């Protein structure tokens, strides 16, 4: 019995060896070197929870658009014929993200994982990427850790981070006259990180932060927190809440009539989907950092029109960034003729890119932070809105070099 099994195992192993030998020597035509003979892009994100609308299934669509554009551009010239897009739901939980990332890399043969919102989940996937020596481009998560203490050779951070949010909104609002701040933040890693980043940005711009009010998460009642913050009579209440919590806070800020007292609301992290869900009147005049806006210029708008056709909705920055990351990855594959991760990393490092999402973009070699122009946006008043999703006015552009953490502050060392 056991000898039989042993024999069978030997036969199987031998044929695997033969097959894999064929695989590496096989595709002579393109002269390329592809694992499984195809390229697999995996989108790992929140397909059903709080970030579903921001990114979710429509980011998978965006990646598919990138694949289609790539294939249309290169046609017969493409170094690889088969490009597959797979998706998985990590439910914003780091343990699930960890397992899913392993599955995607090992079983689904993913060459790259994209998106991964929620900082703790993103850090888990980064660890897997490092271990498996496979690529990971994060778009949805905000933590600067990805390009600081926990940076690694295979991980890139494409769209935004907490430093950049604070640098954009904190600096701009303080310089605009909002000197005295009160900060309300949710008491978990992201919120604490945002609180620190904003405090630094506000103080560097010459402002002061009074109280730092930590709140439970999730929470639907912010009235007392707001009363408390307003009792110090600040110029600005800065909120680091996100998603449903942010909507709760904004509704309750509006009912409290604080704006009439001259207390502005600055929002640390806000997405166009938040404005869409609550309506512009609720957010009117609120300033926030935007990594990309669909109606900013003709190039963006043209792409947004295509996206609308595909999905029936306008894209968020995350959709555009997923498209951009997938497209640039495929361009690198085309240029190098392989999906080998180390080769692609070599191609990426130091590369300057301009596409629909990245304006004046550079993939920094030192920490893999992708820097690009970002924007300070202001929510329009209802009478300025001319069509669906036309919610934002771009107040100013923050150049790539100013928006992101300077390299000399980064704690990243690539090591291996």
């Amino acid at each position, binding site marked *: 019995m056991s000898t039989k099994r042993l024999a069978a195992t030997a036969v199987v192993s031998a044929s695997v060896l033969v097959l894999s030998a064929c695989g590496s020597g096989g595709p002579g035509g393109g002269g390329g070197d592809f694992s499984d003979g195809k390229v697999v892009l995996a989108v790992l994100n929140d397909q059903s929870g709080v970030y579903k609308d921001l990114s979710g299934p429509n980011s998978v669509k965006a990646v598919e658009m990138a694949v289609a554009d790539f294939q249309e551009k290169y046609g017969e010239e493409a170094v690889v014929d088969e490009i597959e897009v797979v998706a998985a739901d990590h439910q914003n939980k780091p343990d699930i993200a960890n397992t899913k990332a392993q599955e995607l890399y090992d079983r689904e043969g993913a060459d790259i994982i994209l998106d991964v919102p929620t900082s703790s989940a993103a850090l888990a996937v980064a660890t897997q990427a490092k271990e498996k020596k496979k690529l990971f481009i994060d778009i949805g998560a905000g933590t600067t850790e990805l390009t600081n203490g926990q940076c690694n050779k295979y991980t890139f951070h494409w769209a935004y981070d907490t430093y950049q949010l604070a640098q954009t909104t904190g600096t701009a609002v303080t310089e605009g006259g909002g000197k005295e701040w009160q900060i309300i933040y949710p008491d978990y890693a992201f919120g604490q990180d945002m609180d620190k980043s904003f405090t630094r940005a506000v103080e560097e711009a010459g402002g002061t932060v009074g109280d730092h009010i*930590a709140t*439970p998460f999730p929470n*639907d009642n912010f009235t*007392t927190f707001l*009363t408390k913050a307003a009792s110090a009579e600040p110029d600005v209440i800065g909120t680091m809440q996100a998603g449903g919590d942010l909507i709760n806070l904004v509704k*309750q800020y509006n*009912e409290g*009539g604080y704006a009439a007292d001259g207390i502005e609301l600055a929002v640390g992290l806000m997405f166009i989907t938040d404005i869409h869900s609550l309506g512009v009147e609720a957010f009117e005049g609120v300033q926030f950092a935007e990594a990309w806006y669909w109606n900013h210029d003709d190039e963006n708008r043209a792409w947004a029109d295509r996206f609308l056709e595909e999905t029936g909705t306008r894209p968020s920055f995350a959709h555009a960034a997923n498209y951009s990351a997938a497209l640039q990855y495929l361009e690198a594959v085309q240029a190098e003729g392989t999906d080998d991760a180390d080769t692609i990393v070599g191609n990426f490092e130091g590369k300057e890119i301009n596409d629909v999402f990245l304006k004046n973009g550079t993939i920094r070699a030192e920490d893999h932070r992708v820097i690009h122009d970002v924007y300070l946006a202001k929510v329009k008043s209802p009478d300025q809105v001319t069509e669906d999703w036309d919610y934002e006015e771009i107040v100013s552009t923050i150049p790539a070099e100013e928006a992101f953490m300077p390299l000399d502050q980064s704690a990243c060392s690539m090591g291996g």
Partner: protein
Amino acid sequence: MNEILQYTVQGLAAGSFYALAALGLAIIFGVLGVVNFAHGACYMLGAFAAAVLMDLVGLNFWLALIVVPVLMFFFGVLLERLLVSRLTALDPLYNFLLTFGLSLLLVDLVKREYGVSGQPYTRPEILGGQLTLGALRLPTYQVFVLVFSLLVCLGVWLLMTRTRIGMIVRASTEKSELTRALGIDVNRWVTPVFGFGIALAGLAGVLAAPFRAITADMGSSFIIILFAVVVIGGLGSIVGAVVAGFLVGLVEAFGQAYAPTLSQIVIFVLMAVVILIRPAGLFGREENA
């Protein structure tokens, strides 16, 4: 001093949502012995119904306060007839699991249909702005919520104490078996009572619509607090549910003001203390039957 007053009103306003919803939960538990885990989802459905009907047929807030609870009543009747009633003869755990499953199903159906970002809602202009009482300034809407839910609680209290229906509900809440043996067809009251409890959750949802994020998940943490409220008040105690609802709102508000990160933990500490000192809750009765 001024702030303390402000925190008090804010706490009572937050407590209004708990009181209304917990009232429904307590009545359902009392008469059916069912711990309705789907109560949070019904609160969410109430808010969604208000938002969706405003969007589709322009149903305004005032009408929603009447129409949505009526719809939720029939939704509750349907649930009870189709599902809950099939399990009442079994261990109460089965209905707990049923309603737990239902709540997941309802939340995911709403997500599927409306996404997760939430719905916009416009409240009537007249409820906007603030009311000024001396040095005290309060959002009009909060004051409205507080007064309105106090009136509803009073109405339910009168219904419970002054009518024969209320007497029967109280009796079957306290001793279901004996009440049957005294010639009252408790089963006849079970379905409308379930519907009524669901309607109260829906009403709390409508009240939340202008003031809170209308998302599929809005009931998920709400139900947890609601259980704490019902346990503090005493399972099945109608007065207890209302008093504990407002009490928890107050504790939450003062927790937020003086120990922000602990504001939700404080509620559960309160619950633990109440259980230790009075296992049946503040207004619960220890029963031996």
